C-alpha cells in the first residue's frame, strides 16, 4: 500500500514526485507511456515565464512567479538545460503600447523583477534582426528557456533515487474507491494507495470520472511548433512575444536552450485528445505571423515540426485541490504557464496533502543532486580531450549534426532511456538537421545491445511504434 499514487508522469507528476521524495512517504508514479514526459511535456515550448502575462486573480497567475524563482536552485541541483535569456513583448503599432504598460504594471504588482519598456531605438540595438517596424517592447529579464523533457527526466530520476517508484507503460484503466484509499487497475497489476493525485493532463477529466467526479472538463488546445535549422542560431537572443490575445500568448520566436530557433505555437481547440497533427494552415499561420516580426525567418529553414496539446480546463485556470472523494486530489487544467509553475504546484500539492492528513516527515538522507548528462558538443577542446582520456567512447561520434558521442548514448540508457525518442530527448542524437538519417541504426544497435533486445524490438516511443520488422515474416497488426 502506497501513501500517494501520482497518476501521470508529465512534468507536473514528476515535479510532485520529486517534492514528495523529500519526505518519508511511499509514492508511486503511474505513467501510461514508455517513458515520462512523453505526453504534453515533450511538446512544450520550454518557456520559463517571468509571470507578468497572467492576472493575479487566477491560481495560475499566483503560482507562476513563485515557480519562476525556484528554477535557479532546481537547475543547480538537477542539471537540466536552463538559461534566463529574457523576454520581449513587442508592439507592432502604437495601439499596442497601452497593453505593454498594463502588462508592466500587472507584473510589477506581482513582483516580477526588472520589467522595462524599450523604445524602438533600444529594441533595434538589442535585437537588430527584428522588423524595424516594431515600435516598442517590454523587456522581462527573468524569463528563460529550458528543455522541458530534460527537466522531467531529471525530476523523476532524482525522485526515484530518493525512493519513489515509477511504473511506465501503466495506463490507469479503472479506479476502485475503497475504504482508506484507492485501487488502480493497470494492464499489468493492481496498485493500492491512500491518496490519489490526478495529474492526468489531457485526460485528467477522464481520470476524475473513474472515481465518479464530473465537475470539470478538459478541452484540449493544440499548438503546432516549427523547429528551424541551426544556422539561424543567434538571429534573436531573447524570447519574442507579440501582444497577447485572450486564448493565447500568440505565436512566439523561441531561441531554445540549445540555441536552435523554434517558432509557434498555434492555438486551436480540438475534440480529439490524440490530435497531435500538424497542418498546412498551421505552418502558414506561424510563418506569415513570424515573418512580420522577424523577416529573415522563412519556412524553408524548417528541420522538423510537431504539435502538442494544452490541457485547458473549462474554468481556464488550474484546478487544484481536494474533492468530494476523500483522498482524491486534482492537479488538473495545467495549461500555460504550467511548466513555469510546476515547482510551485509541487509545493502547493504537498501543502494540500498535509491538510488532508498526510504526515510529511522529512527524510534525513534526501539526495538533492542529479548529475547532468555530459554534452560533448558544447565543450571546449581541452574539456573534450579530458573526457576522451577518461572514456574513449567520447571520441566516437554517433550523431554528427548535434555532435553526440557514443558515451552520451550509453549515458542516456544508464539514466533511463528505453526507446529511440528516449535517447533523442536525453542525448540530442537525432534532433539535428538530418533528423536521424545517420544515427538511427547506430542508436538502435546500442539500445538493442544494452537492453538485450533484438533490433526489431526497439521502438520509437513504446507502444506500437516499431521501427523495423523481421525479414520474411508478416507482422500481424
Amino acid at each position: 500500500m502506497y501513501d500517494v499514487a501520482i497518476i501521470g508522469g508529465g512534468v507536473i507528476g514528476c515535479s510532485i514526485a520529486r517534492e514528495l521524495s523529500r519526505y518519508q512517504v511511499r509514492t508511486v508514479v503511474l505513467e501510461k507511456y514508455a517513458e515520462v514526459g512523453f505526453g504534453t511535456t515533450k511538446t512544450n515550448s520550454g518557456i520559463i515565464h517571468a509571470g507578468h502575462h497572467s492576472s493575479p486573480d487566477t491560481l495560475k497567475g499566483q503560482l507562476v512567479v513563485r515557480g519562476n524563482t525556484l528554477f535557479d536552485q532546481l537547475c543547480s541541483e538537477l542539471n537540466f538545460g536552463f538559461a534566463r535569456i529574457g523576454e520581449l513583448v513587442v508592439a507592432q503599432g502604437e495601439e499596442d503600447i497601452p497593453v505593454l504598460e498594463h502588462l508592466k504594471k500587472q507584473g510589477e504588482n506581482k513582483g516580477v523583477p526588472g520589467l522595462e519598456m524599450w523604445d524602438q531605438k533600444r529594441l533595434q540595438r538589442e535585437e537588430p534582426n527584428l522588423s524595424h517596424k516594431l515600435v516598442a517592447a517590454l523587456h522581462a529579464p527573468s524569463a528563460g528557456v529550458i528543455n522541458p523533457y530534460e527537466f522531467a527526466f531529471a525530476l523523476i530520476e532524482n525522485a526515484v533515487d530518493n525512493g519513489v517508484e515509477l511504473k511506465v507503460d501503466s495506463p490507469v484503466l479503472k479506479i476502485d474507491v475503497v475504504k482508506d484509499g484507492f485501487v488502480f487497475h493497470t494492464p499489468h497489476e493492481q496498485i493500492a494507495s491512500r491518496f490519489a493525485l490526478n495529474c492526468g493532463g489531457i485526460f485528467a477529466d477522464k481520470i476524475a470520472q473513474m472515481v465518479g467526479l464530473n465537475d470539470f472538463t478538459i478541452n484540449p488546445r493544440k499548438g503546432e511548433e516549427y523547429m528551424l535549422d541551426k544556422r539561424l542560431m543567434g538571429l534573436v537572443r531573447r524570447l519574442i512575444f507579440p501582444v497577447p490575445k485572450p486564448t493565447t500568448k500568440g505565436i512566439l520566436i523561441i531561441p531554445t536552450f540549445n540555441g536552435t530557433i523554434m517558432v509557434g505555437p498555434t492555438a486551436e481547440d480540438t475534440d480529439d485528445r490524440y490530435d497531435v497533427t500538424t497542418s498546412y494552415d498551421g505552418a502558414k499561420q506561424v510563418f506569415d505571423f513570424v515573418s512580420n516580426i522577424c523577416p529573415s525567418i522563412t519556412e524553408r529553414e524548417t528541420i522538423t515540426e510537431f504539435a502538442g496539446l494544452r490541457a485547458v480546463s473549462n474554468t481556464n485556470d488550474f484546478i487544484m485541490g481536494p474533492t468530494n472523494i476523500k483522498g482524491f486530489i486534482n492537479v488538473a487544467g495545467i495549461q500555460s504557464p504550467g511548466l513555469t509553475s510546476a515547482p510551485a504546484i509541487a509545493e502547493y500539492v504537498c501543502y494540500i496533502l498535509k491538510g488532508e492528513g498526510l504526515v510529511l516527515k522529512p527524510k534525513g538522507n534526501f539526495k538533492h543532486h542529479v548529475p547532468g548528462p555530459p554534452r560533448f558538443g558544447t565543450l571546449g577542446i581541452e574539456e573534450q580531450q579530458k573526457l576522451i582520456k577518461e572514456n574513449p567512447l567520447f571520441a566516437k561520434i554517433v550523431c554528427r549534426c548535434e555532435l553526440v558521442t557514443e558515451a552520451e548514448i550509453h549515458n542516456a540508457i544508464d539514466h533511463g532511456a528505453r526507446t529511440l525518442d528516449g535517447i533523442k530527448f536525453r542525448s540530442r542524437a537525432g534532433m539535428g538537421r538530418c533528423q536521424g538519417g545517420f544515427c538511427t541504426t547506430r542508436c538502435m544497435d546500442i539500445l538493442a545491445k544494452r537492453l538485450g533486445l533484438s533490433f526489431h524490438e526497439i521502438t520509437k516511443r513504446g507502444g506500437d511504434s516499431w521501427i523495423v520488422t523481421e525479414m520474411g515474416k508478416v507482422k500481424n497488426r
Partner: protein
Amino acid sequence: MLDRMEGKYDVVVVGGGPAGMGAALGARDSGAERVLILDREPEAGGILWQCIHSGFGLHYFREELTGPEYAERFFEKVIDYEVDLVTNSYVSGISVDSDGTKSVRVMNEEHGMDTVNTKSVVLSMGCRERTRGSIRIPGTRPSGVLPAGLAQKIVNLKGYLPGKRIAILGSGDIGLIMARRLTLEGCKVAGVFEIMPYSNGLTRNVVQCLEDFGIPLHLSTTVAYIHGLDRVEKITVAPVSKDLKPDMSRAWDVKCDTLLLSIGLIPENELSLSLGIQMDVVTGGPRVSSTLETSMPGVFASGNVLHVHDLVDFVTRESLLAGQFAGEWAQGVRRPADNIRLVPGDNVRYCVPHSLSPEREHTIYMRCKEAMMPCRIRVGNLMERKLRFVVPAEMIIFKIKPDLLDKFHGDTLRIDILPAEKGKRHD
C-alpha cells in the same frame, strides 16, 4: 585495413566513399607521396556498401558492377597505391596556419582527438537525404516515415525490413531502387507518388524498378496527410494543381505501414561552411574553379559534396581530377587563376565548375530547370550542341576544348538551354 596517421601529409581526403577514394588515387597519380583518407565508417566505400543492386561502372569500367564490387575495385587500388586509410574517424574541424598548412582535427576511439597536418585537402563528404522536415507533410508523427536511403541500409546492411506495406513519396533514384528491392523481399509497394509532372529518377530506374514490377508511379501527386499515432496506418494522397498544392477534392487514402521519402539529397557541407568556403546556393556545394579548388587555397572538393551526381562513375571521374590538382598543389604547382566565369543562363539550374581557364580541357556538369525536347545547349557564342531532350533528373555533361576558349575574350561565359527550333539569337 591500414590504420596509421603519421607526420605531415601532402593530401588529406575527408571521406572515403567513391569520391574520396578517387581523389586519393588522383593525388597519388600526380606524384604526391603522402596521401591520407579519413573515413567515419568502419570501412571505406561510403554509400556503395548498401547499394547491392547492379548498374555501377557502366561508364568507367564499361561493365556492370554492384555497389560493393565497385567499392572493392577502388579499395584494392587504394591499398596498392599505398594510400594511408584511417577509418572510424570523424573530422571535427580544419584550420589553416599562416604558412598555408592545414591542420585537420580527427576524433577516433583508438587515438582520441588528434591533429594531422597537410599541404592540401580534398573535401569528399558526400551528401545526406532530405527528410520530412524539409517539406511539409501534415498529419501525425508516427514511426515508419523514413528516408529511402535509411531504409536501404536497414534492408541491405542490417537484414531487416522497414515495414511490410510501403508507399514512397518522391521518385528519386534511391526510392525507385527501394521499390524494387522491397518488392523482391515480399513487401507490397502500394505506389510511388511524385509531386512533379516528371520522374526525378533516371529513366532506366523507372523502367527496371517500377514498370517491370507493376508498381504504379503517380505523377503530379503528393502525400497530403499521414495517419497513425504510434505507427503509420495510412496516408492520404492527392493530385496537385499547377502551384503544386494538393487538390483535396480528388484525394484518396492508401493503406500502408511505411512511408519512404525519396525527395532529394543535400551535399553535406557543415565542414566546408565552418572553413568559411564560398558556397553555391543552388548546388548546396562549394564554388570551385576549373581545378576543383574551393575559395580557400589548397582546399579542393569533389563528388556529391560538390553537387549531387546521377552516377558514381561521374563522381569517380571528377574526383580523380580533384585529387590530381590537390596533389599538384601539394607539390608546389601553382596555376594561373581562371579568367572566365561560367554562369547559368536560360533553363540552366546550375553548372560546375564555376570558372574556366583556356589552359586546359573542361568537363562541364550541369542540370536544367525544366524538361525540354528537342533542344540545344549554347555556350556563349563559342559552341552549340543539339540534344534530343533534357530533364532535371539527368545530369548533362559535355567537354569544352582549350582551343575553343582561346578565341574567347570576355570574362563571363553564359550557358543556355534553348528549344531546338531556331530561337532568337542575341549575340
